[in-house]
C-alpha cells in the first residue's frame, strides 16, 4: 500500500531523514518507534506532503505521492493525525469534523452525516461538545477530535503521530482499541508512538528510527523481544 525507498528529507539545509526505506501493507498496523527528534514526525509529514522530500521514492497505491500536492493526498485515502493539537480552534467541534470529510464530500450529504454519526459513536464526548469551540476543549478532547476528523474521510491509511500524548490511561487504552478496531474494519494504520510497549502490543510490524535512519525493523513480537529495543524503549516493567 505504502512503499518508501531511500527517502531523504528535512528542513532547508538540515537533512532529518537520511535514506529511509519502509513499507506498509494493507490491513496491518505498523508502528514507528524512536527517541525525541529522531525524525518520526518528519517522516509522516513528508508522506503527507507537508515537507518536501529531497530525494527517494514514496508510492501510495501506486501513486508517486512525492509529486502530489499536500492537499490532494487525503483524497487518495492517506490521512495524518498531526502531532500536537492542530484543531481549528475558532470553529465548533462539528465543523471540525465536517472539514475532515472534505475528501468524501462529493459522495453526498448522506455519506457525510453517516460518517459524522460514526465518529460520535467512537468518541461520545465529542457529541456532547459538538457546538463548543474546539480551542476550548481539554487537551484530551482535542486529541480525540483530531482523530475523529481524520477518520471522517474514510481513509485507507491513517498515520497517527503520538495519539496517546496527554491522554488519560483509560482513554489511551480506548484509543488503542480503536486503532485495533480500525484495522479489523480493514483500515491500515501507521502509528508513531512514545508508548512503545502499548504500540508494539497492537502492531503487526515495527520500525525503529534513530537520527533519521531505520536501525531495526521486523514483526512486533521480534521487536518486543529485541534486547536493544527493550533497553532503549521498553524500560523497566511496571
Amino acid at each position: 500500500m505504502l512503499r518508501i525507498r531511500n527517502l531523504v528529507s528535512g528542513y532547508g539545509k538540515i537533512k532529518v531523514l537520511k535514506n529511509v526505506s519502509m513499507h506498509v501493507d494493507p490491513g496491518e498496523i505498523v508502528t514507528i518507534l524512536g527517541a525525541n527528534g529522531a525524525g518520526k514526525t518528519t517522516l509522516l509529514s513528508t508522506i503527507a506532503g507537508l515537507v518536501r522530500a529531497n530525494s527517494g521514492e514514496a508510492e501510495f497505491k501506486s501513486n508517486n505521492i512525492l509529486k502530489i500536492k499536500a492537499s490532494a493526498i487525503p483524497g487518495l485515502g492517506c490521512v495524518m493525525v498531526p502531532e500536537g493539537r492542530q484543531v481549528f480552534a475558532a470553529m465548533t467541534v462539528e465543523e471540525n469534523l465536517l472539514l475532515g470529510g472534505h475528501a468524501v464530500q462529493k459522495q453526498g450529504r448522506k455519506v457525510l452525516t453517516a460518517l459524522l454519526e460514526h465518529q460520535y459513536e467512537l468518541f461520545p464526548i465529542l457529541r456532547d461538545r459538538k457546538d463548543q469551540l474546539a480551542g476550548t476543549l481539554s487537551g484530551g478532547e482535542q486529541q480525540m477530535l483530531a482523530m475523529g476528523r481524520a477518520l471522517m474521510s474514510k481513509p485507507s491509511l491513517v498515520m497517527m503521530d503520538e495519539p496517546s500524548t496527554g491522554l488519560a490511561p483509560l482513554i489511551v487504552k480506548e484509543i488503542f482499541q480503536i486503532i485495533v478496531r480500525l484495522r479489523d474494519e480493514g483500515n491500515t494504520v501507521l502509528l508513531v508512538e512514545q508508548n512503545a510497549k502499548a504500540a508494539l502490543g497492537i502492531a503487526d510490524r515495527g520500525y525503529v528510527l534513530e537520527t533519521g535512519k531505520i536501525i531495526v525493523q521486523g514483526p512486533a513480537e521480534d521487536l518486543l523481544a529485541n534486547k536493544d529495543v527493550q533497553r532503549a524503549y521498553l524500560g523497566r516493567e511496571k
Partner: protein
Amino acid sequence: MTTELFIQYLMAGITYGSIYAIVAIGFNIIYNTTGIINFAQGEFVMFGGMIAISLLQFMPLPMAIIVAVLITMLIGAMIEICFIRWLKSPSVLRMIIITIGISILSREVGVHVWGESIRSLPYFFGNEITSFVIFGAHISPQVLWVVAASGLMVIGLGIFFKTTSVGREMRACASNRKAATLCGINTQNMVTLSFILSAGIGALAGCVMSPITYSQYDMGTGLAIKGFTVAILGGLGSSGGAVAAGLLLGVIEAFSVSVVPLAFQDAISIAILLTILFVRPQGLFGSKEAAGLSEF
C-alpha cells in the same frame, strides 16, 4: 426634531452605513480565510467604480458594471497570486504591511491611469436631482440601490460562510492552515478565492455608490479606514456584526451633525466606537473566545 428631519438623517445614516458595511465585509472575507486584514480593500472599491466608468464609453451601464466587477476580481486574483500566494507561512504583520504597500501602489496606478479628477457613473434611475419623498424627507433612489445591494451581499455571504462547505473550508484555512491542508483542502486556492470574492464585492460597492459619492483614485484610504473600524467594531469575521456596526456608525455620523459641528463628526463617531470597544473588546458580535484565540 421634526419627523422629516429625523427620516432625512436616518436615510443619510443608512446610506453611509451600508457603504461602510460592504467594505467591512470585504475585509471580513479575506480575514476569514487568511487571518489578515487586507488594507487594499478600499482600492478594490476604487477600481470597481473607475473601471465601470471607463467601460461606459463602450457598453451600456449594466454591462459595464458586470465587466468592471469581473475585471476587479481578476485584479484581486492577480494581487493574491503575485504577492501573497507564494509566501510560506508569512506572519500577520508582514501580510498587513504588504497589503498596505499594495494599496499605495494601486492608488498610484489609479492616478496614472485616470488622473486626479473625480468621475462618476450616471444615476441608475433618474439623475442628480431626482428624489422621492417619504414623510416629507427627500431621498435619492440611488440610496435604495446601495441599501439593496449591501443587503443582498450580506445575506448571500452569511449563507455562504455558515452553510456551504466552501465557506466552511475558507474559515478553516484562517483557523489552521496546516490542519486544513491535512484535511485535503487546497489552502492556496481558498485564499485566492477569498481575494476574488472580496474584490468582487468591493467593486460592486464601488459601482453602486459611485453616483452618490463619486469615484476618485484616492477614495480607497478613507473607505478602508472606515471599513476597518466597522469590521473591528462588529467583531472581525462576523458579517452580521459588520452590518450592525456599519449602520451604527453611519447613523451616529448622520445624527451627530445635529449636535456638534460637522468638523468634529469623525472625532465624535470614532470616540463613541472606541468606547464601545473598551466595553466589549471583542467587538459587538465577535465571540470573546474567538478574539482571544486569534493572536496577532
